[in-house]
């Protein structure tokens, strides 16, 4: 017996009888924990299969899994964005890619694979950055799922979706489901629940070695590797940019680090550690990605269909000692720079200079802004760009904040990488 899919004129394939036997058990009847608004039967099926448009950000470890799950669940109009190309080290978990695909666009190859494997699903790839797209683009989707490993990109999309919310237009509220490679899945309803920015302080601080340790007193193999990439590479290669994806560059760093380690009697520098340190590699396996991606898609399905209550609002899995998970409601922050509306109180010493404040903002766990520009409602304090303005405001760096901002006054912090500004209310100690 073989059933061929039938296509009508508009090239939309018909589903075969029995295709949704499994999913339809859920869509044909409510369960005890289903919202009364759930419209069991044809209406919800039509909405899921013919009307919902969903965006997947990232076609990597989480993205591949997310795309496959969404397609099988019955989402038919899927868009995917990814700026990366396929690397050999992706193949141990990014299961839509094969050896022959190495070097090609992740978004394109993933889309092609899904469309071949799951008939009738349209996947529209975009090989590029999320920042290339404007509000109109994001407005077209019902739900957005993020499978990213970049904090910056997630902050950007989170802020963009919060800004998109127009209280007059319910359609403008786009649920954001965020999957984290470390084992988190969460549902964000922009402006209603806690957003990505609200929980920024939950992120682990990246390990940073003091520059004097790297330069003068290395103790660990990592210190030697940092020396090679941070100090020795620019010294030898000048302006030539270090490409951490280039094995030859890694090999050069490895040799430099190994020589330094040898000189200092430090053991343990090898190629793999070198690559791990300079690329800040986080170990990754198929199974963790599968769990988190499945959880994200399950939430998307429940939100799209109302067939069951959805996650409120944070799920975290730790799988090293047995199976341990934690489900909790992360609270919205009133002083969240993206969704809170209130200025963040910051107490500083009256001696603090502009330069020191900038350093503080870069360091602070709940702020983490790489190149902040500062201004008050009436004047510019320091601007990172354009060059003329940077030069004009540079003399302020050594000034005390107290000279520029009165106690209780506000400073607006902006950065080119973030589509929002942060208001600080300054108090002096």
């Amino acid at each position, binding site marked *: 017996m073989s059933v061929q899919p039938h296509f009508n004129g508009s090239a939309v394939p018909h589903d075969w009888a029995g295709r949704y036997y499994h999913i339809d058990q859920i869509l044909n009847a409510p369960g005890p924990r289903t919202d009364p608004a759930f419209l069991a039967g044809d209406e919800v099926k039509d909405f899921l299969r013919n009307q919902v448009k969903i965006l997947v950000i990232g076609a990597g470890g989480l993205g591949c899994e997310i795309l496959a*799950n969404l397609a099988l*669940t019955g989402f038919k109009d899927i868009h995917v964005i990814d700026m990366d190309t396929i690397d050999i080290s992706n193949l141990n978990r990014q299961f839509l890619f*094969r050896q022959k695909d190495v070097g090609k666009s992740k978004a394109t190859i993933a889309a092609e694979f899904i469309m071949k494997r799951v008939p009738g699903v349209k996947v529209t790839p975009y090989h590029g950055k999320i920042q290339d797209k404007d509000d109109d683009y994001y407005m077209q989707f019902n739900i957005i799922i993020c499978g990213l490993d970049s904090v910056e990109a997630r902050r950007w999309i989170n802020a963009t979706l919060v800004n998109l919310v127009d209280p007059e237009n319910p359609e403008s509220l786009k649920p954001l489901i965020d999957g984290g490679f470390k084992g988190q899945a969460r549902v964000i309803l922009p402006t209603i629940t806690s957003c990505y920015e609200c929980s920024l302080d939950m992120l682990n601080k990246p390990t940073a070695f003091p520059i004097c340790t790297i330069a003068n007193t290395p*103790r660990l193999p990592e210190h030697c590797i940092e020396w090679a990439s941070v100090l020795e590479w620019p010294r030898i290669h000048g302006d030539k940019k270090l490409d951490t994806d280039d094995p030859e560059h890694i090999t050069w760093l490895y040799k430099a680090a190994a020589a330094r380690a040898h000189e200092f009697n430090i053991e343990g520098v090898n190629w793999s550690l070198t690559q791990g340190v300079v690329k800040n590699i986080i170990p990754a*396996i198929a199974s963790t990605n599968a769990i988190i991606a499945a959880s994200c898609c399950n939430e998307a399905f429940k939100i799209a269909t109302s067939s069951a209550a959805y996650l409120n609002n944070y*799920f975290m899995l730790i799988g090293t000692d047995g199976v341990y998970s934690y489900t909790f409601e992360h609270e919205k922050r009133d002083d969240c720079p993206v969704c809170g509306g209130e200025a963040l109180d910051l107490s500083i010493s009256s001696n603090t200079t502009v330069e020191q404040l900038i350093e503080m903002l870069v360091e602070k766990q709940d702020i983490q802004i790489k190149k902040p520009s500062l201004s008050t409602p009436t004047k510019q304090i320091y601007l990172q760009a354009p060059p003329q303005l940077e030069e004009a405001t540079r003399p302020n760096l050594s000034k005390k904040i107290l000279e520029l901002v009165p106690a209780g006054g506000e400073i607006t912090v902006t950065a080119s990488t973030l589509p929002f500004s942060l208001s600080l209310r300054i108090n002096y100690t």
Partner: protein
Amino acid sequence: MADSKDIESATTAIILDGIVPDSRTRRYDRQLRLWAASGQSALEHSRILVLSSSATSSSILKNLVLPGIGHFTILDKSIVTPEDAGNNFFLEGPDSIGKSRAEETVHFLAELNEGVDGRADTRELRELLNDPKGAAEWLGTYTIVIAHNLDNGLLEKLSTLLWEDESLPPLVVVHSAGFLAEFAIQFHEHTIIESHLESSPSLRIDKAFPALRDYALSLDFQNMDPTDHSHIPYVVILVRVLEEWRNTHNGLPPQTYPEKQAFKAKISSMKRKFDEENVEEAESQAYRCWTTSAVPSEISALLSDPRLSQPALSLPPFFRLLKALKKFTERHDILPLTSTLPDMKANTEEYVKLQRMYKNRAAEEKAEIREILVEDGGAEGVDDVLIDQFVKNAHRLKILNGRKWGTLEKEKDGERIINALESSPKQAATHFGLSALQRVLSKRGNTNQSQRQGQLQPPKITIEELTAEAQALLPSGASLPETEWNEVAGELVRAPTADLPNSAAFLGGLVAQEVIKMITKQYVPVDGICVIDLIETWTGVI
């Protein structure tokens, strides 16, 4: 570029073989960072048997094929139905309908990794189990067996057969329906050296070994060059200050709160500059002086295993090493030293010097373990790599006792069930719901795939039917928690045979992860029944 050439010539001496990893190592790079070459080798030598090729089974296998198991067999005699084609990513939609389900899924799974060997077996489990001897021989060729939604009668038979002979592989039992699922691993005993648990070994500041103590006492802190002073590692400072303290306190470390404060003040007073970082570090680590380095209670418990009184040679390597460790702790009242020293404020010279002291001492103590092993006659077949691993991880060894599948229900007094119903009613209700559902379906023959073919309506099951079956599983006097049970039962009768793609993918990840832990003998697998609810999105263990 002249300098870079210098570096190259300087390093050629210490670079022995190919520097850049080969393509296999690069493919597995992200996972090798989790379980190293030893874990990878265990995976590559493993043979997995999966009973059925449901969406869930395929998802589990996907997450095992990708990291590179050696071999997998899918035992399934059924033919791909239109329903299968709709929910399994490892079938090619309608093109697969009518073909052998095992063959199709093996084909699409094997594509994921050229290094993995996959085979479809279209025989029937029922018939195979009718010949227990032949079945045991066949099952014995596998490392682990995984069964998803298997007929209850067959599961009883299979789990008993695998349990009766300790040499037969562990069994992973997976049940799922709609948004609810559970799984458990049946195994006899699982010993883990590389548990990766986050407990850190003692630095022995309170019981400094001679080289460390001598070094700490040899330093003239008072007349030292200020720069040198700021480079003495906190470990050395603490050993010295503690020694001095003990000399004036009857050999005792600080006991009371005021004493501890005084001790910290003593450290603080050593500062030459107001921000001497190594001294500050010593102050913040001062608690190590009054935390006694002793054998942790979890490890003591392992050392009281009655088997350790048996002759070493009759024991497996893990227990021979444990026996040697027991003797070592009886002599020294402490675990052998590990050579790993955390990073601390110091210059290179001082740090490396200290590191070498730890390393030498650790090597001596490891040698003592080896000597004990030899004296005991247990050294045969225990290589140096294993001893090394064992000693390094002595503070976080782990033994899981394991149990047969279904034991929870068969306990005479039912104490664990009663506890679970009280302390975790949601989890317990879900477990009993899934067990009851499996029994109801098995009675109707509905889990047998070939019988279900072409039948597009899911079976109608009533809440009363399910409740009666669940109550029959409870010990007398126990009852189902009402609210939780209603939620579970209602959800199960809604979708009794739904193998949802997202639930399948979630279980696929979770089960594969535990299977990898079992195979690699690294990390700690789940000990008990893991229950999953994908409505509220939680997991729990009973």
